[in-house]
């Protein structure tokens, strides 16, 4: 699984595919005010991106991938 759900933290790793988006959204609904760790994420499918944009969680860590980070900062800040 490209997303690991901890207590109040969703850990994104590698490439997060389209199929994760629904689960991610449900998790956010069940766990409001959770945070997201994107450090080891290489790419996330646009569906996940829009979930993040809609939910606006706190970003615990930005991606190490510079290109992805620039994109996500412009989308989520």
């Amino acid at each position, binding site marked *: 699984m490209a997303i690991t759900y901890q207590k109040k933290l969703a850990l994104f790793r590698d490439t997060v595919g389209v199929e994760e988006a629904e689960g991610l959204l449900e998790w956010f609904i069940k766990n409001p005010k959770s945070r997201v760790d994107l450090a080891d994420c290489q790419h996330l499918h646009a569906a996940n991106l829009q979930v993040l944009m*809609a939910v606006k969680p706190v970003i615990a860590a930005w991606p190490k991938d510079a290109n992805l980070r620039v994109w996500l900062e412009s989308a989520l800040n």
Partner: protein
Amino acid sequence: MNPLLEQFLAEARDFLQGIAEKLMQLENDPNSTVVMNELFRLVHTLKGNSGLFEFPEMTRVLHAGEDLLDAVRDGRVGYSQELTDRLLDAMDFVNLLVDEIESNGGGNGSDHGQNALRLAESLRQLIGVTAIADGGNAKASVAEAFQSSSAPNMPELPRLAELPEQQRMALYRQALAGDTLDTLLFVEYTPEDECFFKGEDPFHQVRQIPDIVWQSVRPRELWTASAELDAYHCNLIFDTLTTAAPEELYELFRYTPEQLRIVPLPPIVLALPHGDPNGGAVYGDFVTDALRRLDSGDMAGLESVARTMLELSSPDLWLASGLRWLLLVLELEPGNRHAQRTLIGSLASLTLPVWTTPETATAVEAVAGPGSGLVGEMFSDADARAFADILQAQREILGLADSDAWLSGRLNAAAAALAACHRRAGRIEALPALEAALAEALDNVEAAPLLAWLDAHAPLDLSATVGPEAAEEAEAAPTPIRNALIDVEPDNKFGRRAEDAYVGPKTLKVDQDKIDNLMGLIGEMVVAKNSLPYLASRAETQYGVRELGREIKTQYAVINRIAEEMQDAIMQVRMMPMSFVFQRFPRLVRDTSRKLGKEVNLVLEGENTEADKNIVEALADPLIHIVRNSLDHGIETPEVRRAAGKPPAGRLTIRATQEADRVHIEISDDGKGIDPIIIKRKAYEKGIIDEVTMERLSDQEAVNLVFAAGFSTAEVISDLSGRGVGMDVVRSAVEKVNGTVSLESELGKGTLIRLSLPLSMAVTSVMIVESDKQIFGVPMDMVVETVRVSRSVIRTIKKRQTTVLRGRIVPLLALNDLLAIGAEPLSNDDDELATLVVRVHEEHVGIVVDDFRETVDIILKPMAGIIGGLGGYSGSALLGDGSVLMVLNPRELV
């Protein structure tokens, strides 16, 4: 594999072949515009085709090739051999891709990206310096195309200010240094709602955009609460600013260009001051002073006061940032008063400057029409956009000069298009005026009245008139038009009535196995019909019903005719032109001769001569062998040829002709020919002939020694001043399909090799002979004649029986002896021996048998299994009465 892809692959091969041919022709005649245009067309079309699929490597290389050829065509780049070489390399690569796609069934296998880049680069290199200017043009025109399909609108870019000022300034500088002002593109990408279900990842797609300098992602509609959010309904819009070429974007988004809006931006949009706005009022005087200097054209003064002010200001202030921009604009765009004024104004108001240029300002108005109120409810956005595009196109058409002879046709057509799309849009009330305008335009032979109508009914005005009245109209109509439009689709789709003739493709692709199967069946039928004559004779002799026997024979004649026609028809299906083999030669000859430092003109004749697929395919290798030999050993280097008084370029002719049921192929060169003395000596040294034979052999016979097995060895190749490399291989390959090969050579003048092959090899005609109460078949194409030789004229020379036939000494061999049957040949009542004269390696040999029988058509089945190794037979066949006929191979027998 889907049919479209299959079609593409088949056509791609044809095109590649055509491209190779044209390149060869161009080499001989570099100035031919006809060939050049044709070559360009082929590459161009192939590129277009590849664009229908996801083969970026192929498209990239072909695109580069097309650009290069375009440059050559326009005279921007001269023709060179280098050019042909690189293009050939590139086409080889494309060929490879085609092969791979075919074997993978569609997937473009491994990573050829590097090669594609390298090849494209090597092609573009040849376009050289001039290419840059051209690239600029292409860019501009593509950008233009984008604009025309998606009306330009100055995007709002407030967040652009988030880019560090230094970076923006560098970009601004860079953009102004470029050839065009369009080097900065604003790209707005709005994926469709349902794109996730189509396996698309717009985020991934947008991340592929090269040279992004700024990006932002925003929702199309405000986000709903998490609980109501649909994760799989795409609600994103991606904005980017890039310095990439429009072609690259077009390539990247070629499947969804309509989801893309590209607006070339004037670099000035980067000029956005930022910083701490405190302290603005203090400098009020400066603004007045600066504007006064600007108005009076005192640019030096303006620069000077701006510089002084900047030195006095803290660099973190909004003011300082604005001044830095002002100074930069004064430096790089001294003539852009509008920009300078706007910047000064922004210093006064402490708000971001709003960058609109006159063109973009009008564009904004123009685009406001179609999407919004124009046709309201009944049109989808796509319809509205298309409607606007069509109107725009007709406007452009009507705006053209009125000078062409076919002007009235063009006006009619434009009016018809306008009428059609208005009808479709439900705007029929505009049509009478359109008709009137058309009539007037035709009378006056000018477009103006139609343009006037267009202006009066253009989107801008229309949107004003579509008010409550139009809404009412839609209300009053029995069916909302929207519904009607939706219903049109299924009606069209399934409305094909039985009487609507189906126009299918005229060419069928059939698997070769199916044809082979058909061929096998007709072969069996040919054989089966052969049983009827047996039946007829049995009816006569055994049952004594002559009448029935005769009737069977009549019926047999009918069936025989049909079977033969059927066989012919199926043969025709299998026929292939010799060009299938010939087409490789231009390239082969070119490459080989250049490697050898020789000049060779290749002449191909009779490429359309057809033969059975198997024959044509079987010919490929022997022919290549012969051509190689000719190039290696026949044709001399230009120096040698000149010394011998020949033209420096050698000539190699390959000619195919059809004669009755055989195909003849002649390969001739004007090289140095074969020296019979050297051949004799070599053959003697190799132990192929003895001393006596060496003395006795005629020159022609000596030359034929090159066909002898074991003649060719590496040693021979190196020092033989003629040919003979693997000619035995050629001979056996040709004989395998019942062909013959012969060679004539004249020392110093050249060599001619003749191949003769049957048109088809599926059904063989054999003569049945009888010996010692057994029957055997002999292929008819080897039989010269059948004679009855009286014992009295048989002479024994050197223990061998011979006779003289038509002035020629013919050795006689008894079939019984050849097959080790311990019986004497039977003679007839006149003491004559039945002798079958056959041609073996251009010599006539008489084979003595007991009696001749009829000739029959059979399907020859090669000997397989244990008897496969049995020499002297070429195969077996089933006869009409069910018996098995062994077919002899006289070549091996004698």
